[in-house]
């Protein structure tokens, strides 16, 4: 009985610990997607985001589109299709 309980506890702990980070990733992906779509570019779902620097990302969408999303010197969000 002890082993299943410990395994269950371990699983629950892992799930609970990973939940916030995954939520944060989801929210960031949503942010990226909303930003891309706000600029009139198509993107059905974000599948990958790579950070190039401060406020500088490369986002890959599920439909194959890739975008360079960054904030320029004037403080404007720029979305460039790659």
């Amino acid at each position: 009985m002890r082993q299943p309980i410990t395994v269950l506890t371990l699983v629950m702990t892992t799930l609970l610990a990973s939940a916030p980070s995954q939520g944060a990733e989801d929210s960031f992906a949503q942010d990226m997607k909303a930003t891309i779509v706000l600029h009139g570019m198509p993107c059905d779902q974000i599948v990958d985001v790579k950070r190039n620097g401060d406020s500088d990302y490369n986002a890959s969408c599920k439909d194959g589109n890739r975008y360079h999303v960054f904030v320029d010197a004037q403080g404007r969000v720029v979305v460039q299709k790659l």
Partner: protein
Amino acid sequence: MHRMASVGFLPLVFLAACARPGPGPSQSPPGAAAVEAPRTSEAIATLAPPPVKPSAPQVASTPSVQPVPASPAPAAGVAQASRGAIIPPSTSKAASPSGSSGGAAQAPAKPSGAGHPVPPPGGKERTAPREKPATVEIASQQPAAQLDLAALEDRLRNTRAIGVFTKLSLKNNVDDLLTAFRAFYNGQLRTTLAELRQRYDILVMKVLTLVQNGDSDLAQAIAASRDSIWGILSDREKFQKFSLH
């Protein structure tokens, strides 16, 4: 075996019978709450007044501050009507972010917001809360709109419904639109107010689309203040005053 079983069940039945009355006496302390519940359901107005009364003095105290905005009462009639509809939700929601004068304008709106849900049960106290907010709203319509804008701005900044990049993109769009309005009023941009209205509508729709799932209250507040914001943008004097702020 059946006898044995029935004999075995008897103590259980007794225990169950004892257990039921047990909670009864033990509920006697909670019984007070149980008695209060019917009271509240029967006469909510009698219990509701105590919470309302403390807020009423706040209203009485705030009008001393509100008469100041009473002077700029003359404003667009349509916008006034819409503002009157806006004030309750926005002020009741955005009580925290506003400044001192914002609190003054919001405090009176609270009783009105509280007064609207209360009306169904209580008939006596309907009249008192209704009259006070009505006078307050009439007295401070234009400042309320300004305060709503400030509150809306704060709420948009602080909402978690949209991310940082999205907020920055929206801010860029808003800045672009304001620049277009500025150029339009300065005669530098050859466009019509109808086209600017279209751009404004699209921008508001974008904001609403982004916010409505994560922060429906904010979306409602924005939708409610849509016309009053347009009232400011489409009026050159109001826009210039607004851009000075």
